[in-house]
């Protein structure tokens, strides 16, 4: 067990190395804000093309636990986002991948891709944003999408500004 933190850091260095080598199209950036603390990362998540989230970029906060990658990272949206499974105030994400379905084979980068997937395939049955989920459950896709677009326009950073 003594060797664990060292192994963890090695993995994080590997991941950092890898993210610098190859870009994840889902992200505008992915890096620890402070290179001395690999347990805290930041990312910019692109809205999925051809979705109401298109054009938006959301900042995401990633906290890596000590027993990563055995345990999943804690991931939160910093930028306000309207999504049935994301808490609009805290940015908390309800995603099985970050809980029971976590696997050590996921990297931070691939986890981000999964979160981008969540944007276009919400699960209104386990909502953290009741209003958005209600719209979806009622089949009001138009209302839901315009609500999402409003939040994109109002809060998200714009890809064109980058």
């Amino acid at each position, binding site marked *: 067990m003594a060797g664990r933190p060292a192994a963890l850091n090695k993995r994080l260095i590997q991941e950092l190395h890898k993210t610098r080598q190859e870009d994840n199209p889902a992200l505008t950036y992915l890096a620890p804000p402070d290179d001395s603390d690999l347990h805290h990362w930041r990312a910019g998540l692109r809205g999925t093309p051809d979705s109401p989230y298109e054009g938006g970029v959301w900042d995401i906060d990633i906290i890596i636990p000590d027993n990563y*990658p055995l345990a999943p990272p804690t991931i939160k949206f910093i930028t306000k986002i309207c999504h049935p499974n994301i808490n609009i105030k805290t940015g*908390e994400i309800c995603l*099985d991948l970050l809980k*029971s379905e976590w696997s*050590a*084979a*996921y990297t931070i980068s*691939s986890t981000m891709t999964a979160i981008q997937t969540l944007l276009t395939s919400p699960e209104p*049955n386990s909502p953290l944003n009741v209003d958005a989920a209600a719209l979806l459950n009622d089949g009001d896709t138009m209302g839901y999408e315009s609500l999402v677009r409003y939040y994109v326009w109002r809060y998200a950073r714009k890809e064109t500004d980058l």
Partner: protein
Amino acid sequence: MSAATNFNFSVIVIPSAARPVAANLDFPTLNQSLSFALEVSSPSDFQTLYSQDSKGGNTFKGLLYVPDLDPSDPCDNHDLVPRNITRKANLPMDDLKLIAYAPLITQHCSRQYMYSAENDNVAAFIFYGVPAKYSNHTDPLQGEEYPFEYPVYFLDGAIGQPLMNKLSEYSANMSEVYNGFNLTEAGYDIRDYARIYTVISTRNTNPMPGLWLFLLVVVAVLLFIIGASSLLMHLFQFHYRRSLRRRIANGEVDLEGLGVGRITVPREFLAKFPLYVYIAENGGQSTPPKRKAQNSTAATRSAPKEEGRRKEKVRVPSAVVVKEGVSIMIPATITTERKSKGKERVKDKSKSPTAIDTTTSPEMAEVSTSKGLTLASPTTPSTKSRSSPRVQSPSTSSPQLGGAQTPTASSPPHHRGYHQTSCPICLDDFIHQETTVRELPCLHIFHPECIDPYLESQSSLCVLCKQSCLPKGYVPIRLTNAIVRRERLLRSVRERSREVAAATAANNGGNSNDEGGILWRWRLRRLRRQELDLMGRQALVRAGRGNYGERGRGGGFGLGPQYREQRVVEDVVRPRWRETMDRIFPGFR
């Protein structure tokens, strides 16, 4: 209160010398043809005036006599009570059981008699009706607190008066009683006593017995039904448990999906997973892949280096080092040469839900069928050679396709793995001929120091493909009824949703090229689970349990977490009565 059912009067013979035990009046009956006997059993002939006996079923026995009154008491009316009536003094012994007998004249007289009888310690009192001119026909007990313990009965006068006369006939010695001459002629001792002996049978007048009996029958029937259905349910449950055990043993059950909590791999199983020294296909060089068909079925260990990019693992029972000079069977890998083919194959791969390939370079991608087997392209020249294709299916029992090209089944097990060049947990590259790797049953390889703690503490599933690492036939959990129920529900839901999910997955899974397909497999699982979740919810709502969907915030998708919650509830909060109910009726929910 118990009512009399029967009065029996007979004459018994008490030997003068006898000294009977008071409780036992077991004397012979006087010859019936020479004496008298009377049975009163018609309910219209008598009634029970008072009885403290609540149980009923008792019999009161004793010698019949008329209690003594004060000689001056007008109640001792000699028109009714003959002078030679049997009095206490006429009875042979003091401590015999007695039954008092008297006419029911007035309330006052009744009380006089009863007090006298109380002093004589009688077992019961029988009044009989007298003609109207003697009586005001009052109930002797009317409006009184009755202080006596013995029961009081009333006999109809039509029977009572003749009986009184009879009683007067059996008060003297044997020669003077009724038929005395004949009796002495018949050999009865003249000194013996012939007296009227009375037996009063009672039964409970309470209407309850019938009701009790009815209730008893109802309860018995209920108990029988409960017992029978319980037995039946236990039988069914036993059957279900056995079939579940069998299916788990056959590896047909997704144990993690059952939500039985964290299933880990015991150390003894972990120790059985092979450890190898990793040997890279390109011999540790980072040269670009040079694919070549290989004809040899056996080669020395030096061969891989010469023949370009190839990967193999050398089986080492537990030691880490491969001894020099050991020759290793190396089956030729299927090799492909052109990038254009590679791209084609990537497309194919994405259609196959079980294809697992962790390679990232298109050159290394392989055509895979939906069975998960790697097949060589027929046009590739290498297939003409006697090469054995690598089995890509995680299942070790999968047949090796392309057997026609494999002259011998000499392919050793350590050549069936994936093109894994790095450990998925720490992301470190494996070092050729140096890194010891642990191979799981699904053939994925990891650093033992990375995968062992994970399997021992986190999960029994492979990190990459989520396939169980537990051996077939191993049942890692105690199969409780709750688990059996849950599995049945899940299975029925799953069966209904399987086609839907497969169709959805086919529509959604087409455009993935993420790393190793692992993210894509998650998407597939998620889709399937969402489908399951919905169906399970509907099923449970139909079953009248609407709170299925109520979950804590951030509870996550899918059945897993929520069933886990349910399990916690079952284990902790369930009251004892439900536990008991569950034990009796294991099938109920």
